[in-house]
């Protein structure tokens, strides 16, 4: 019986061939690396994440991060390690500090200003507009003209 099974296995190469090994020795650590690296900037590249870049420095930095993960350092510690050496430039998510306040609140301030302006304008406008420049009558006339035009053309 064992023989038969062995022969079957030998004949069907597909079954014989094994499942490919993951590239990384430790897939869990690799997942953490990836999670960190997509928010980090490769310094030598034009504009790529540490995860995507194949530059030698990016490879070295990934190696450093892998070692730090192996040493069981927290994400925060790893990021601090990199920021201490390369500055905030490595972070694709800029930290919230005095100089970046405008960056982070800007979009929402913009929205508030826009919304307020819209409401105020609409309110003010409601008092001012007396007549309607494009009246329904005019619209009808336009449509009529257009209809005639289509018949003529």
């Amino acid at each position, binding site marked *: 019986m064992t023989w038969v099974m062995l022969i079957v296995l030998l004949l069907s190469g597909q079954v014989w061939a094994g499942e490919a090994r993951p590239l990384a020795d430790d897939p869990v650590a690799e997942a953490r690396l990836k999670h960190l690296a997509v928010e980090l900037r490769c310094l030598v590249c034009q504009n790529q994440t540490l995860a995507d870049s194949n530059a030698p*420095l990016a490879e070295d930095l990934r190696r450093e991060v892998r070692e730090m993960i192996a040493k069981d350092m927290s994400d925060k510690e790893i990021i601090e390690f990199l920021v201490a*050496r*390369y500055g905030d430039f490595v972070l694709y998510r800029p930290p919230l500090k005095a100089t970046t306040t405008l960056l982070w609140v800007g979009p929402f301030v913009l929205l508030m200003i826009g919304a307020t302006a819209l409401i105020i304008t609409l309110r003010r406008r409601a008092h001012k507009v007396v007549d309607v420049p494009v009246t329904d009558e005019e619209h009808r006339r336009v449509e009529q003209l257009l209809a005639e035009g289509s018949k003529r053309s």
Partner: protein
Amino acid sequence: MNRFLLPLSIFIVVVVFLGVGLKLNPREIPSPLVGKAAPDFSQPQLYDPATVFSPADLKGKVWLLNFWASWCSGCRTEHPVLMELAKSGEVPIFGMDYKDQRDEALAWLKRWGNPYPVVGVDDAGRVGINYGVYGVPETYVIDKQGVIRYKQIGPLDPDTVAKKILPLVKQLESQ
């Protein structure tokens, strides 16, 4: 103010910034290490792998640390400047051979001349990472207390040496 002028005003501010931006180099990243203690290391020396090179040996001196490699074209550009500076004897330049092959590095120095009293070897690029090196050549000015005072990103040129490095070295020497 006429509120219809607002878009124009915003635009003018943006144009001014863009104009200033034209003069800046977006790829030059200032180092957060300036003003901080130079990271320690003990690396084998290029000419004598059995001996280590460590910044601790240089306490009390003002010195330059130059990261270079035989494969780097910018290093070739700045090399004559380093040779000149070394000849002048104003300040010692210590080399750090970054991610390089030993024989190629030796051949390179033999061919173009060696401005360094001592060259350390950083074959894995770890010292580089600790110093925040992101592209060779990079040069650090380190003071008597072992604090980084200046970082040059990219090749040194005679102008930078004369206007920035040497005055800074003189000032640090006198402290």
